[in-house]
């Protein structure tokens, strides 16, 4: 058997998404072909998506071999724990007063999940780059632009083994200066610059 694992996974991905879309679409009125309701186009599109999912799935059995990258046991474990912790942390954090607004719960819980993911070397680059961006989102309102940039750059810098502390500090200073000039001085966007705890 020459199974194309990439196509197989793509097919399943498409099928799951299409099925989810069709299921969510049951809330919308279909209408008729003459007077299409809000559910008509989604029905067509997700129906088509489902068909393509099936075709891709079928092709997968003949177009290989093209295997996915090997996942280590640690990759599986960290991914499972990261998703679980994020899902548990979100409702808990959303119940804390002060965190229910501004998407704090979403940002903090997914950042925690990403840090757990970073334990495994296979996910480290992905997790740290994205965690850096998440932290920017979490810190921006209360911490101000400069603190948010600094935190993001420091976290994301860990994604590259070659970074040295002095280089990172240089990066932070340069980017803060550049962003102040472009976004605050020239474009004048509405954002806190300094912390307002």
């Amino acid at each position, binding site marked *: 058997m020459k199974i194309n694992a990439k196509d197989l996974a793509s097919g399943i991905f498409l099928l799951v998404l299409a099925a989810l879309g069709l299921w969510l679409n049951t809330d919308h009125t279909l209408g008729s072909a003459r007077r299409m309701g809000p559910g008509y186009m989604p029905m067509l599109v997700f129906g088509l998506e489902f068909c393509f999912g099936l075709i891709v799935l079928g092709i997968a059995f003949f177009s290989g071999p093209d295997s996915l990258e090997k996942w280590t046991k640690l990759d599986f474990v960290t991914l499972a724990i990261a998703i679980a912790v994020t899902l548990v942390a979100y409702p808990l954090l959303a119940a804390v007063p002060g965190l229910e607004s501004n998407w704090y719960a979403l*940002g903090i819980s997914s950042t925690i999940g990403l840090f757990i993911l970073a334990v495994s070397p296979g996910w480290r680059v992905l997790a740290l780059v994205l965690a850096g961006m998440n932290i920017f989102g979490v810190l921006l309102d209360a911490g101000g632009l400069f603190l948010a940039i600094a935190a993001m750059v420091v976290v994301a810098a860990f994604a590259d083994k*070659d970074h040295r502390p002095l280089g990172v500090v240089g990066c932070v200073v340069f980017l803060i200066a550049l962003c102040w000039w472009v976004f605050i001085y020239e474009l004048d966007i509405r954002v806190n610059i300094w912390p307002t705890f």
Partner: protein
Amino acid sequence: MELLLSNLAHGFGVAMSFDNLLFALLGALIGTAIGVLPGIGPVATISLLLPITFGQPATTAIIMLAGIYYGAQYGGSTTAILLNLPGEVSSVVTTLEGYKMARNGRAGAALTIAAVGSFFAGSVATLLVAASGPLLTQVALSFGPADYFSLMLLGLIISAVLAQGSVVKSIAMVTLGVALGLVGTDVQTGQQRFTFGVPELSDGLNFAAMAMGVFGIAEIILNLEKPEVRSVLTAKVGSLMLTREEWKRATPSVLRGTIIGSALGILPGGGASLASFGSYMMERKMSKGRHEFGNGAIEGVAGPEAANNAAAQTSFIPLLTLGIPSNAVMALMVGALIIQGIQPGPRMVESQPDLFWGLICSMWIGNLMLLVINLPMIGMWVKLLQVPYKYMYPAILTFCAIGVYSINNNVFDVYSTVFFGILGYVFNKLKMEPAPLLVGFVLGPMMEEHLRRAMLLSRGDPYIFIDFANRPISATLLVICALTLGLMLSPALRKKKEAAMAE
């Protein structure tokens, strides 16, 4: 003809204003820089800079973004010739002959013909846009909703067929893009669709967040995962002058490249990388120096470089006349226009003459600037190649984060970018091409609108789309759709495409 001249004069008036000149230069500079640097392309850069353009007038914004796209075509050749690394996808084929020329001590000549060829092709293609724009607009004004729908369908299908990799998967990606475009408020009934009660989603998924995530952020992660290969510059640039013999050989190639590039640029789904590839194939078969291919034939640089720049200009034609983006970069342009409150379409030539003619004239001015930026200042761009990626990616990340936040002053958009970053990473690992997704996302809502209107007019009878007697345009377009799909299913042609893409 006289009208064309007076329109062009008007356009030059717009393009020569201080602000527009400044931003054309800025776009050309940024474009060259990202063209020179491998690992960051025009799609990521334009999505990164989308939010920054909101504060500017629409004309200035589009002039700058266009400059980035064609500027990247100039810059890409520099890296290809000097380092044997494609700075852009569209200069992959330039590495084949260009680097060989550099090793033969003719790097300077290769750089010169790349820039001069690009300039010539760009000038011709710009004229073509100016001449064909108003003509095509006349045709487009007679389009009914059914014709529009069929045209968009054709655009989607061709953009999927011409994308790299499996055709079925690319079409599935287009469909996925259309599906993502459904999120938000239904225009006709006001009902919320797929918003999960999130108020931020009622206007639909954020276009900039999606483009930045799928292209910008995912690209950073993928670049960091593979170890950096940056060979040291070994070849000397040498004299920039071409010998008489080289001019003689390169001129017909530039002409052929201009023609094939202009044609492939107009095609929906076409664009710079397809054009340079097509031209390379043609030169290898047709040029006088074809026996020298593989040993540094100047035709292999002149043709593709002219072609990719010609295509970068002419791919604006479907956008400016029909409002239909032919590739991912043009999809971003539509996004930029819509955010500015301009609906791209056939009425743009009349309702936005400043934008239409100003953009065309600034393209020519921009090409002239690029000639100067690239040739005498080549040393500066070579230095840029020495900046390691570890200092570049924090900057890209920071610009993404602030840029996407500043669109709505809402951190939700920052988290959506993260989400789309993960999605883009998964797409890459599964070999699902993300560019058709973006085109589908932009065209999806327009297609729904036209489908509804067409069906309302026909009282629910789908025959309206294939009615040759009353709606010949729509029927013809659908026949082309069917033919395109049929051709791709034939095994012989598929093999040919696979072989072509593999080289």
